[in-house]
């Protein structure tokens, strides 16, 4: 179960998306994530699907690894979809529910067409959010991502924001995720071997069963942190002062092409959103 966390796992390949500037990728991903919230109809969701598939194809990351990222939010997905399904009322009071059930007097569970639609949309929106951001982390090394964040946040230095330190913390966190996952796995197996039981009992009992995992993990984390600090100090780390960088970030034609495609696409999405709320006339925007 722990191996499914692909977040922060770079998929090495030589592709258009991999070669793009990380800063552009980050900005475009942000644009995409904002854009997703302006998608109102299933037709436009269809367009987004085509765009996403095209990006995955161009990035040469197997679709399986991209979709694997969704597994991590299954619980959230089901939860929000169910909430939306049951708590969305009809468009007006006269609308009849598709299905209703009244277990006792004064309490009814109803499902409307609108509920079905909004559940499906929130489901798609969350899946697309995760998949989109996952493409970023699959095609960009954490180090590149860090450089990108550092470079994009640079203006904040004016207000004394520790940009470099922030970026370093981010990069270390990302690069330690695989070893921490491995360690968690190992601890779970070790505790199971001694008869620990994680799968039965009530909620409280199960939560308590995780204490023997968390404590060694925490202690191990501190030990790791100290060793890492020693290793970094030994390699002359002295903070951001006078630090140089091996990688120079350069914009290329790829970044221009990708930016154009994304900007045009989402300008379209924003325009459609604006039109639908202003006129409400373009019927297919609602489906």
């Amino acid at each position, binding site marked *: 179960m722990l191996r499914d966390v692909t977040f922060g796992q770079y998929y090495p390949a030589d592709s258009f998306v991999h070669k793009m500037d990380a800063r552009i990728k980050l900005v475009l991903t942000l644009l995409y994530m904002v854009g997703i919230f302006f998608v109102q109809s299933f037709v436009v969701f269809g367009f987004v699907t085509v765009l996403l598939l095209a990006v995955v194809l161009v990035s040469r990351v197997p679709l399986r690894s991209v979709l694997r990222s969704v597994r991590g939010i299954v619980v959230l997905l089901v939860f929000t979809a169910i909430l939306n399904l049951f708590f969305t009322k009809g468009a007006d009071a006269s609308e009849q529910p598709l299905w209703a059930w009244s277990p006792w007097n004064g309490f009814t569970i109803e499902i409307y067409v609108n509920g079905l639609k909004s559940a499906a949309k929130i489901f798609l929106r969350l899946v697309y959010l995760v998949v989109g951001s996952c493409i970023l982390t699959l095609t960009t090394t954490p*180090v590149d991502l860090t450089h990108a964040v550092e470079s994009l946040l640079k203006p904040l230095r004016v207000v004394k924001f520790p940009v470099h330190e922030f970026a370093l913390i981010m990069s270390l966190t990302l690069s330690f995720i695989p070893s921490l996952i491995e360690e968690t796995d190992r601890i779970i197996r070790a505790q199971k071997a001694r008869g620990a039981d994680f799968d039965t009992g009530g909620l409280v009992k199960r939560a308590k069963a995780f204490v023997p995992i968390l404590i060694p993990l925490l202690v191990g984390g501190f030990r790791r942190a100290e060793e890492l600090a*020693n*290793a*970094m100090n*030994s390699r002359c780390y002295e903070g951001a002062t006078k*630090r140089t*960088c*091996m*990688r120079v970030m350069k914009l290329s034609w790829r970044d221009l092409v990708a930016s154009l495609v994304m900007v045009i696409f989402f300008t379209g999405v924003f325009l459609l959103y604006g039109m639908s709320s202003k006129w409400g006339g373009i019927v297919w925007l609602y489906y």
Partner: protein
Amino acid sequence: MEIIRLDNVSYYYKAYNDDGTVGSAVGVEGVTLSVEEGDFVALVGHNGCGKSTLAKLLNGLLLPQSGVVTVNGLKTSEKENIFEIRKNVGMVFQNPDNQMVASIVEEDVAFGPENLGVPQKEIAERVYDALEQVGMSDYAKSSPHRLSGGQKQRIAIAGALAIRPKVLVLDESTAMLDPLGRKEVLEVAHKLNAQGMTVVLITHFMEEVLDCDSVVVMNGGHVVSVGTPNEIFDNRSLLDEVGLRAPRTVELAQKLSEAGFDVNARERDARKLGGDVCLNLKK
């Protein structure tokens, strides 16, 4: 030329007694030691004998509470020297996973030169030089956590080499590796030494001591003996006292020679030793 010098160095750790009062535990005590440039020095001793404390004193990760540590003429106790000292003393630790700062090999190796403020073009040069020296050029773009232990440790060595140090300290860097990984790391260390690098190898595997120039034996925070590997192996009462054993082949050769066999008591090649024993039996 002397590159590292320790004069009567002591370091104590804070320790909590059973009754909750704060006491101290010996890290190292009264250590006087000198390392010549170009030497291959092994530091051996049991767990908790102060080897790793001594290593951390060499590049100013720990500062001596009494005594003086000098590296290339600079005292570690002066704060403004530390940066220069760390440029001269590269250090590789035990757990390869906990020394990696980046998730791409070349970016990890570049961390040191980046910290030094080396110009961008030269960083790439240093990184590829360093990877070449440890024989990991083909893995420049891989992610470290997919490599074997020995490969990861060679990357860590490359990370230290990219700073272009004069001394390489391997602090139990082979302890977590399988025999093959250990062999890889040792080969790299000896190769670097042949090119003029001073190497301080901290270990508790006595087999690794065989090809060193000198051996420092530690026990309970004290240096109890310094000598060539042969001198140390011959001093069996000392080895017994500190709970160490000479490598099997060495022990066997010693015992056979004592028992009257006509073999070289200093023979280290197990196969040659076997041949000699057979010749003896034939006679």
